[in-house]
């Protein structure tokens, strides 16, 4: 019952962005992936989500190899993501952004959509309703009718996370979800993430903020220069001398 990455590597020409890593992201738990800038964290997300082809290794979901599937196929397996540099549909409203996240739950047939059958219209109402509820959960209902591109950074993050979890994926990969948020805001996000995990979703939290990860994660992986240098429970990992050195070395 998990997403597994086995011996996965991604080379760009001579550059080994990710060089043979093994990870497991179990459902119903929060897994952390930390590491200094340029360690290859986002590359891992892109390898899982179908943006990059793997140079070596494979990605499996419940034992099924998904390493050759395309971006949309991977998502339809129930693996959702957010982007490090937030990517909303900037001209669409906040509500429409979340509604498009409900695509996988949209049961409108092609004929109904083109012929304007009542079923298509009622499905649209149902999804609006559901998107609205989700905005409430993230405390951004009052922005529902605004263009998403015009929101403050922190609110854009929330819209993107709401969109990613809208179709109730089994795995969500969150790339720096609390970047640019203050203590209170990131606290609100943390409780949403816990609820998600309790409802059975597996979360992969890619973060820079070690404290946030340590507080929230069941298990943490540390990536440095494309290799895993430590893994385990947050407490052990954050005390690991190799990790401390990678962080200090990375910042010096």
């Amino acid at each position, binding site marked *: 019952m998990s997403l597994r990455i086995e011996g996965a590597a991604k080379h760009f020409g001579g550059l080994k962005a990710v060089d043979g890593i093994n990870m497991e992201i179990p459902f119903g738990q929060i897994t952390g992936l930390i590491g200094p800038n340029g360690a290859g964290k986002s590359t891992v997300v892109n390898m899982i989500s179908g*943006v990059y*082809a793997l140079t070596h290794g494979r990605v499996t979901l419940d034992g099924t190899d998904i390493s050759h599937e*395309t971006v949309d196929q991977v998502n339809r397996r129930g693996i959702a993501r957010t982007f490090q540099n937030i990517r909303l549909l900037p001209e669409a409203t906040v509500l429409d952004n979340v509604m498009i996240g409900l695509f996988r739950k949209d049961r409108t047939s092609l004929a109904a959509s083109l012929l304007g059958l009542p079923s298509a219209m009622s499905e649209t109402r149902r999804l609006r309703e559901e998107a609205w509820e989700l905005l409430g959960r993230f405390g951004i209902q009052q922005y529902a009718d605004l263009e998403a591109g015009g929101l403050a950074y922190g609110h854009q993050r929330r819209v993107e996370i709401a969109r990613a979890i809208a179709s109730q994926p089994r795995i969500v990969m969150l790339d720096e979800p609390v970047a640019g948020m203050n203590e209170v805001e990131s606290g609100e996000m943390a409780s949403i993430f816990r609820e998600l995990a309790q409802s059975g979703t597996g979360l992969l939290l890619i973060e820079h903020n070690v404290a946030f990860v340590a507080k929230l994660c069941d298990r943490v992986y540390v990536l440095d220069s494309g290799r895993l240098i430590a893994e385990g429970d947050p407490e052990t990992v954050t005390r690991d001398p190799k990790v401390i050195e990678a962080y200090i070395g990375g910042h010096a």
Partner: protein
Amino acid sequence: MLLQQILNGTVSGAVYALFALGFTLIFGVQKLLNLAHGAIFMAGAFIAYYATINGLPFWFAVVLAVIATGLVSIVTDFVAFRQLRKQGHAEFAAIVTSLGVDLILMNIAQQVSRTQVLSFPFGTFPVEFYRGFGMRISLLQIVILVLVVILVAALYWYIHRTSFGRQIRAVSSNETTSALLGVSSQSVYLQTFFIAGALAGLAGVLIGLQFNSIHFMMGEPFLLQAFVVVVIGGLGSLMGAVLAALFIGIVQSLTIAYLSSELSIAIIFTLLFVTLLFFPNGFFGKADTFARGSRR
């Protein structure tokens, strides 16, 4: 017969190369398609024609046409592209605005020429032929070939051996970074558009001479031809454009001679489709033409 057709095709291809080089240069720097390029080519022929019939020496008319079309091209940049560069999402908008410039230039030319087909007065360029190896070549064809070889070599040198070339490459890879490095993107755009326009203008004069026919719609088939050339050569690749232009010139000459001119057009555009399908980056290009949804 066959060799003669290949020779004629090479000469046509050499002129296509002049046209396509400017088109691909602009794409290389801006990542935008300039649909007004065909009308600028036409303007070159028009300016040289009117200068000649008004008594100016032919060589001066050519120089005038080349400089004027360079300037028209710069104006095109101002009118069609400058605003869009600031906005982003310019890919579609640029197709529309440059099409707008194209329509305006064609309409002006139509009014000026009263929709007539014009031709240079007899004797504007000496009509002489040379024979050898069973082929016949005109003085004009020789001049065209020599001129194109010199210009392509000069452009190659300018872009690969001078500081301007480095600036072009800096701006085309990333405008923000190049601004940080102190490269003035404005000056690069001005030079790029001038060179592109001047080359197209010269191509217009040469085609006007060769076929002895100048009219306001003459740019259209050349623009379409240029699409085929740059797609096969790889959009943004100068060497690719030259080789593809020669290839297309020869294919066209042979298909017209042995099949028919309509079929020739169909064959050439089918080549474009096949290239897009199987070699979307062309044969010499590095441009990222595509890759959507699939792993890379």
